[in-house]
């Protein structure tokens, strides 16, 4: 395996002072105040005074090193502000690093956005050529692939219409089609898969897969953990400018999610009906790597709680998941789904296993209630929270759109041909 990208001790700092105030007059003003030993007249109250001082730095990336082999699809994940965009910008040569370097073998094309440079007044045809050239293709290269691009985008009929008359879907499809037909040895992609309708997304994912199979190297930044798991063999997790994990995509994703979980602020719990000695001790979510507050759509998750009772007895419980608009989307209740209602030990932990979480991405609240002989003994509102990330629920690589799915229903299609003439 040859290394095609070698990132060596890469750092990028943004020097706040260097940005200045944007106008010469204000810069002078700040400078004059400092000369007289006065505070920065333009600093906002309650904010750190960044003024014009040199040396105040924010490190967007700090000493990052990793290598990418030829043909590898590497995922880059991390929270907002972790340094993903900065890394991409340096790779795309939009901005220069502060220190360190990236060595590259082969031609790099980066897609930080689709349709960069599209001009609304130009026709689809003209924009394809312009956008292709902006992305580094020659006129001849675009001309050679033109039919393929138009076909991929499915806009044959409108290719000589100005793109300002396109629907946003057509616009995005055409823009992606140009990008998808670049022939770089290395492709750097940022979240562009989140565009277009479901059918087109599938095409894009397929195209990405093809690119990878052709032995080209892909760097993919995405918030979509399902896509990262599906497409990437390896992943790098960035956290506050550092690499916090690197390795096989599955491990990296788990590591990222568990770190995410540990940083989420615990939210207020509201408890009613507490009978002394009867009720929940703790409620949490769990996956194969332990406690978590996040899950991936279509993957397994356990809801767990521990309880205390005065003695071995029969009792019931109900766990309800609410979505972000406070609709109850799923109820897990012992009265309904537990077949044997036998007496349980006085202390214990109960685990509810969900093999394939059928919920679209979003934040869910868990309310928990415990009953003895039909009477509430404990009731916790907001007992736990679960952040569900988009995932590959149907196994097609498609992310079911949350807008049309409150809950995902597993299903199959059957086609029956009618042979009758």
């Amino acid at each position, binding site marked *: 395996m040859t290394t095609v990208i070698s990132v060596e001790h890469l750092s990028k700092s943004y020097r706040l002072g260097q940005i200045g105030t944007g106008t010469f007059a204000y810069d002078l003003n700040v400078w004059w105040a400092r000369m007289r030993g006065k505070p920065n007249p333009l600093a906002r109250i309650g904010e750190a005074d960044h003024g014009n001082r040199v040396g105040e730095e924010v490190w967007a990336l700090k000493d990052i090193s990793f290598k990418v082999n030829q043909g590898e699809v590497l995922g880059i994940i991390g929270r907002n502000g972790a340094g993903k965009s900065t890394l991409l910008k340096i790779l795309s040569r939009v901005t220069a690093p502060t220190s360190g370097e990236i060595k590259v073998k082969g*031609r790099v094309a980066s897609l930080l956005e689709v349709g960069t440079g599209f001009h609304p007044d130009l026709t689809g045809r003209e924009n394809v050529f312009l956008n292709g050239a902006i992305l580094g293709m020659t*006129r001849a290269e675009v001309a050679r692939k033109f039919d393929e691009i138009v076909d991929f985008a499915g806009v044959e009929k409108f290719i000589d219409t100005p793109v300002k008359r396109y629907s946003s879907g057509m616009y995005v499809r055409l823009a992606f089609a140009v990008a998808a037909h670049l022939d770089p040895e290395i492709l750097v992609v940022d979240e562009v898969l989140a565009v277009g309708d479901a059918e087109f997304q599938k095409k894009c994912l397929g195209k990405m897969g093809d690119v990878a199979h052709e032995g080209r190297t892909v760097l993919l930044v995405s918030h979509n953990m399902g896509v990262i798991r599906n497409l990437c063999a390896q992943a790098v997790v960035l956290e506050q400018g550092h690499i916090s994990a690197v390795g096989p995509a599955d491990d990296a994703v788990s590591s990222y999610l568990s770190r995410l979980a540990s940083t989420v602020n615990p939210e207020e719990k509201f408890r009613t009906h507490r009978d002394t000695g009867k009720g929940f001790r703790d409620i949490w979510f769990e996956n194969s790597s332990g406690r978590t507050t996040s899950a991936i759509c279509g993957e397994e998750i356990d809801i767990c709680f521990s309880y205390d009772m005065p003695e071995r007895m029969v009792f019931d419980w109900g766990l309800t998941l609410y979505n972000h608009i406070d609709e109850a989307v799923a109820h897990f209740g012992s009265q309904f789904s537990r077949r044997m209602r036998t007496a349980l030990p006085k202390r214990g932990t109960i685990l509810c296993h969900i093999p394939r979480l059928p919920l679209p991405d979003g934040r869910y609240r868990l309310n928990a209630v415990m009953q003895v002989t039909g009477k509430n003994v404990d009731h916790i509102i907001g007992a736990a929270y679960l952040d569900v990330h988009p995932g590959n629920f149907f196994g097609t690589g498609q992310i079911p759109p949350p807008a049309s799915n409150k809950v995902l229903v597993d299903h199959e299609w059957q086609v029956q041909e009618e042979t009758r003439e």
Partner: protein
Amino acid sequence: MTSTSDSVSNLEPEHWDMIIGPQRSLFDLRLGELWRYRDLVMLFVRRDFVAFYKQTILGPLWYLIQPLLTTITFTIIFGNFANLPTDGLPDFLFYMSGTVIWTYFASCLTKTSETFVSNANIFGKVYFPRLAVPVSVLFSNLIAFSIQFAFFLVFMAYFAVTGADIQPNAWILLTPVLIFMMAGLGLGFGIIISSLTTKYRDLRFLVTFGVSLLMYATPVIYPISSVPEQFRWLILANPMTSIVEAFRNAFLGAGSVEVGQLAYSFGFMLVVVFLGAVIFNRVEQTFMDTV
């Protein structure tokens, strides 16, 4: 496969096609890369041309209306009211020649000075040699200039037929050089200003004002011969002076043309372009952090 290496160390046993490092050297201007992106330059030109007249009623006619209106205004104000001398040429032709030539330089300068600020969106998303944008501006303006210049020639022919004293001469052969010089000066000043505007937006307002002020320091609305002797050096220090005068001399046969003056302007142009390219090159690497 294209090679865009900043610096490939000889000690490095492996071959890397590209090394993205901190600052590149000041003089590493990557003009070869600009050449590889020549298709992009031409597509920018096309885009600007199409975008200029799309959704206008008169379309490309505006290229003619602009200089015509300016010329008429100048003829009325400076020719009739102020009665400025015109070296014996018809007022209209004198002002038109000045306007058409000046417009090319001024629009090259103004447009290129907006490079970073008005393209921040594209520059923030994709890499291509940033010089492609200002260079394409020179060509877009050249299209406008050619149309306007042809228009000027039409008027020139009309005045010649109606008996005005116009003597085009062999200096006409120098026209491509003069255009090149104007483009160079416009580009050089423009990219210096555009590099500075990434930090100081104030400069944008100064540009419009400065360019019109500079026009009065150039023999556009008056011939150099009418400038009093003690101020003449000041006007001659302006590198545009000899270009405008040489143009008038070549096509209309009035005005002074001195090889020494032209050489001065040419040298001035080279220095400004080089300085501009170096500053631009420095700024383009980090300007996304400040815009």
